[in-house]
C-alpha cells in the first residue's frame, strides 16, 4: 500500500501532472454538462486559437517571474506590433517587412523595459506599468485611432505559415507549443534559464557568484517583448484586422495562466508545462461555462469558483500530505472536544 502511495506521489511530482489532472477533470465535467459541444472537435479547435497567443505571452512572462520580475507592458506591445504589421500589409502590401518590424518593435520595447529595470533600478511593476501607458498611447497616436480591416489575406504566405489550418487544427497552436518546448529547454537546460532562477531565488547571491544579473534581466525583458510581438502577429493575422485596444483583455488572463500553472509569485521557481496547461484552462474557462448552460450574470461568478477550485485541486494533488493537513487538524480538534 505504502509502495503504491509513494508511486502515486512520485507521478504527481512530475512537472505539470497535477495541473493536467485538473484540466482533464474540467474537460470531463464539461463533457457531462455539455456533451453537444464537448464531444465535438470544433470547440477544442476554437479554444486552441485563443490559447495560442495566450500561451506565448504566458511562457515569456513565466521566465520573467522566475527571475523575480514582472512585465505589465505586454498588452501594449500586442497593440504596437499589431499596428506595425497591419500598417505594412494595409498600406504597403509588405507582410514580411511587417512581420520583421513587428518583432523588432517588440524587441525594442522589451529591451527598453530591461534597461529601465535592470540598469536604472526602477521596480519592474512601476516601470512596465508606465511603459504600458506609453506604448499603448503611442500606438493610438501612430494609428490616428483607426482600426484596419486586412480583408482577404488568406492566400498570403505569412498567413499560411502562421495561422492556416491543418485539417481543423490551427497552425498557430503548433508555433505556441514549439516555442514553449524551446523555452522549457532554455529554462531547464541552458545557463540563461539557470541564471534566471538563481536571480529569482536570491539576486544578491546570484551577483556574488558571478551571474551578470543586469544582462540576464535585460535579455529576459527583451525576450518577453519579442514573444508578445509574435503573439500579436498571430492575433492580427487570424483576426484579419487590427484595433488599437488589441491585447488589452489579456493582462489578467496571462498572469492567471502563469500562476495557476504553479510558477512562484516570489520568483526562483517556474513551471512552463504548468503554464501551458494553465493557459488552456484559462482559454476554455468562460467558453466552457457558457456551453455548460450557465447564463446571464452568473458566468463570471462560476468562472471565479472554477478557477479557485482548480488552484485548490492543483495544490492538493501536488502535495497530498500537505493538502490533507487541515482535515487532520480538524479531526484532531474534534477528537479532543469529544474526549
Amino acid at each position, binding site marked *: 500500500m505504502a509502495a503504491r502511495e509513494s508511486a502515486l506521489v512520485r507521478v504527481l511530482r512530475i512537472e505539470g501532472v497535477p495541473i493536467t489532472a485538473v484540466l482533464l477533470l474540467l474537460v470531463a465535467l464539461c463533457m457531462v454538462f455539455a456533451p453537444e459541444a464537448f464531444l465535438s472537435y470544433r470547440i477544442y479547435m476554437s479554444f486552441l486559437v485563443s490559447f495560442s497567443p495566450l500561451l506565448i505571452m504566458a511562457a515569456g512572462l513565466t521566465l520573467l517571474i522566475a527571475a523575480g520580475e514582472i512585465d505589465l507592458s505586454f498588452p501594449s506591445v500586442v497593440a504596437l506590433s499589431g499596428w506595425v504589421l497591419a500598417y505594412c500589409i494595409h498600406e504597403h502590401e509588405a507582410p514580411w517587412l511587417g512581420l520583421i518590424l513587428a518583432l523588432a518593435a517588440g524587441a525594442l520595447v522589451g529591451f527598453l523595459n530591461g534597461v529601465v529595470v535592470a540598469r536604472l533600478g526602477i521596480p519592474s511593476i512601476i516601470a512596465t506599468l508606465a511603459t504600458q501607458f506609453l506604448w499603448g498611447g503611442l500606438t493610438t497616436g501612430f494609428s490616428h485611432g483607426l482600426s484596419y480591416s486586412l480583408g482577404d489575406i488568406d492566400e498570403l504566405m505569412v498567413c499560411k505559415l502562421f495561422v492556416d489550418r491543418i485539417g481543423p487544427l490551427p497552425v498557430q497552436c503548433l508555433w505556441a507549443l514549439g516555442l514553449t518546448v524551446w523555452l522549457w529547454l532554455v529554462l531547464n537546460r541552458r545557463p540563461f534559464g539557470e541564471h534566471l532562477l538563481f536571480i529569482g531565488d536570491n539576486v544578491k547571491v546570484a551577483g556574488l557568484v558571478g551571474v551578470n544579473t543586469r544582462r540576464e534581466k535585460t535579455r529576459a525583458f527583451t525576450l518577453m517583448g519579442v514573444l508578445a510581438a509574435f503573439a500579436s502577429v498571430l492575433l492580427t493575422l487570424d483576426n484579419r484586422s487590427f484595433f488599437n485596444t*488589441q491585447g488589452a483583455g489579456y493582462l489578467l488572463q496571462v498572469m492567471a495562466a502563469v500562476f495557476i500553472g504553479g510558477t512562484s509569485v516570489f520568483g526562483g521557481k517556474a513551471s512552463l508545462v504548468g503554464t501551458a496547461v494553465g493557459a488552456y484552462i484559462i482559454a476554455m474557462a468562460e467558453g466552457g461555462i457558457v456551453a455548460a448552460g450557465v447564463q446571464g450574470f452568473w458566468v463570471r461568478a462560476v468562472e471565479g469558483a472554477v478557477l479557485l477550485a482548480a488552484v485548490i485541486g492543483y495544490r492538493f494533488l501536488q502535495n497530498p500530505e500537505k493538502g490533507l493537513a487541515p482535515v487532520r487538524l480538524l479531526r484532531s480538534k474534534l477528537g479532543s472536544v469529544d474526549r
Partner: protein
Amino acid sequence: MKRLALIAASGALALAIAPNGPARAEDKLGAGITMYFQMGGNPGDGATLPRTNGARAAAEALGVTLKEQYSGWQPETMLSQFREALAASPGCVEIMGHPGNEAFAKLVADAEKRGIVITSGNSPLTKLKDQYVANGFGYAGVDLYEGGKLTAQKMIENGKLKKGDKALEYGLRAQAERGKSDQGLYDTLVAAGLQVDYIEISPEVDHDSSLAVPIISAYLLKHPDLKAIGTQHGNVTAFIAKALKDAGKKPGEITVGGIDLSPATIDALKKGYVTVTLDQQLYLQGFLPVMQCVLSKKYGLSGLAINTGAGVVTPGSIGALVPLIDKGIR
C-alpha cells in the same frame, strides 16, 4: 419645438463657420470656452473615434478648447473624470450617462451652482436632463431602449425570425444606463415569441472583444439550432463573424443584429455574416454637445435632446458609407 431649436442652433453654427475669410481664433463664437468631454471607450476604438472626430471638428469650428477624457467605458472612471473636470472649473462638461442619475446627482448639482454648463451624450441621464434642461443640459445619443428595440425589429424582419426560434443576446445589461439598449433588444425578441438566452459580457471581452470568439463559438456548438444573435456592443459585433466561421456557420445561417460600423463589422456586413447594425451616427454625438455648450454658455439657450440613431445599416446599404467610415466619420 425641438426641431425649431435645432434649426436655430444650426443657423448660429453656420454663421460661426461661414466662409467670410478665415475667422481669427478670438472671433469665433466659442472663443475662451474650455470644454471637458467624455469620449467613452479608448482613444481611437471603433465605437469612440467618430465621436472624437466630431467633437474636434466642432471645437475647431467654434474656437473651443477641448479636453478629451477616455474611460474605457468604466462608469467609476467616468465619475472620477467628472470630478477632475469640475476641479478645473471649465465652461462646460459633457458626461456620459453610464453611472446613472443617482451617481451624478450631487456632482451635477454642484457644477450647476457654479455656472458650469453640463450636457450629456451616448447614454441618457433623463432625470438630470429634465431638472437642468433650462441651463443647457441636453442629450445627444440614441434613445438606448428604442435603439435596441429597433435592432431587434430589423433582425426579425430581415432574418425572417418567427415565434419559437432560439436566440442569444450577448450584452451589458448589468450597466445602469448602457444596459437599456440590450434590454430593449431582449424585450423585443421575447415579445415576438423567440426563446432568448442572455450572457453578460465580461470586463476582459469589454476591453478586447477578440476574446468573445471562443465564448460565442462554444455557445453555438452547444445550441446548433440557434437562429439569431443580438448584441449592442460595437466591438463584439465586429467579432461575431469570426465566431460564426469557427463554429462552421455560413453567412446568413444565423441572423446577427449588432451596433456601430467598425472595419471588421463592415466586412461582416458585406459578406452577409451580420444582418443589421444600428448606426448611432457617433460623429453627431461628438459634434452636437460642443455646439450645445457654446450656445448655452454664450446665449443661455436650453438643452436639446437629439436622437442620433434612427436607422440600421444592412448588407444592401453599407457600400455608400465605406469612404466616410474609412475617415472615422461614420
